[in-house]
């Protein structure tokens, strides 16, 4: 588990470099990626992969919004590095492999799962965004 956390931190920060993120934002990028992967691995042990991805992306969205406020930088810098580990690359790969081997039924199952996980990632980001907007409206109303 510790190796998983360390590697996810390094991998996410390295993705910050590939996306040309500002140098001072790289540790935060790594942190967001580490948190998202840690939650995903913990949840995946007892719940479905789709639910784990949903919760993990929601946390990514929320932490990214907090970081964006703190460091006055666009949200996208943090959220991109955070969701990269959750992208169902392995499943998509397996699906492709089965398609190539003419095992279409197994391939379709895997492809459907990859599709649902992508959807979960999208919805997780959206929920975080919507909650942020609601809180903002509430804050301006209270003022």
């Amino acid at each position, binding site marked *: 588990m510790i190796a998983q956390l360390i590697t996810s931190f390094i991998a996410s920060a390295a993705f910050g470099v590939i996306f040309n993120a500002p140098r001072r934002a790289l540790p935060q990028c790594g942190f967001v990626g580490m948190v998202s992967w840690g939650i995903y691995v913990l949840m995946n042990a007892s719940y479905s992969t789709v639910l784990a991805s949903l919760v993990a992306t929601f946390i990514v969205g929320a932490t990214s919004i907090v970081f964006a406020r703190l460091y006055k930088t666009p949200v996208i810098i943090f959220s991109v590095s955070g969701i990269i580990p959750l992208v169902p690359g392995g499943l998509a790969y397996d699906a492709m492999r089965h398609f*190539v081997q003419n095992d279409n039924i197994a391939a379709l199952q895997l492809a459907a799962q990859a599709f649902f996980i*992508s959807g979960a990632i999208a919805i997780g980001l959206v929920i975080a965004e919507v909650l942020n907007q609601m809180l903002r409206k509430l804050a301006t109303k209270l003022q």
Partner: protein
Amino acid sequence: MEEKIDHLTYEIIEICLLAGKIMLQSGAETSRVEDTMTRIAAALGIPRSHSYVTPTGIIFSTDGAEPAKLIRITERTTDLHKVAEVNSVSRNLSNGDITMSEARLLLREIEAHPHTYPIWFQIVAASIASGCFLIMFQGGWFDFIPAMLCGGLGLAAVIFFQRLVAVKFFAEFSAAFLVGLFAFFFTEISIGYQVDKIIIGSVMPLVPGLLITNAVRDLMSGHLVSGLSKGAEAFLTAFAIGTGIALVFILF
């Protein structure tokens, strides 16, 4: 007198378009580009402006009699540093910390800036990321080095092929093919053991993560045209990677 005002308006439009162009070329989401342009225009004295931003072009007009201006975007890269820089210029301009001419100077500077990190450093980062992903996907440490080599090769190949031919999907397809080929080669000569894990780890730097996030955010904020076209681009990229890998499996 009237001519002077017109000149000023044109200058404001030019600054807005420059800011929008840099942001869009660097991979910002559509709503942020529109928002920044409107904010800059408002800070410089045009309270009501309209912008229509798609991944391939920006149309910007003021509410007055001036003609709308169009900018064509042909090249898109990912440079989040520039997005953050333009964002802070617009923020400073709204707060009144810098003047119009200072803002224009800053934007020109940002536009001329090279990437934050040199290419070799990005390739090194890609190979480290690939190695780390291998561990995250339950691969063994003995495959760490082959995954690093394949991952670095993958990103280098994408950058190289994109310079060679302008077709982005072909570059991704060939890079994925090379990654698969070398992963097979490494397992053949028993430097690597699990070919699946090596390929999955080293293909990750090619995955269109930024496009997926941007597509979702655009769709949710009502920018349907941008959202759908970015989604299509992400899908095509994923498809190109998958086909490149599949071709290796068909051949061997």
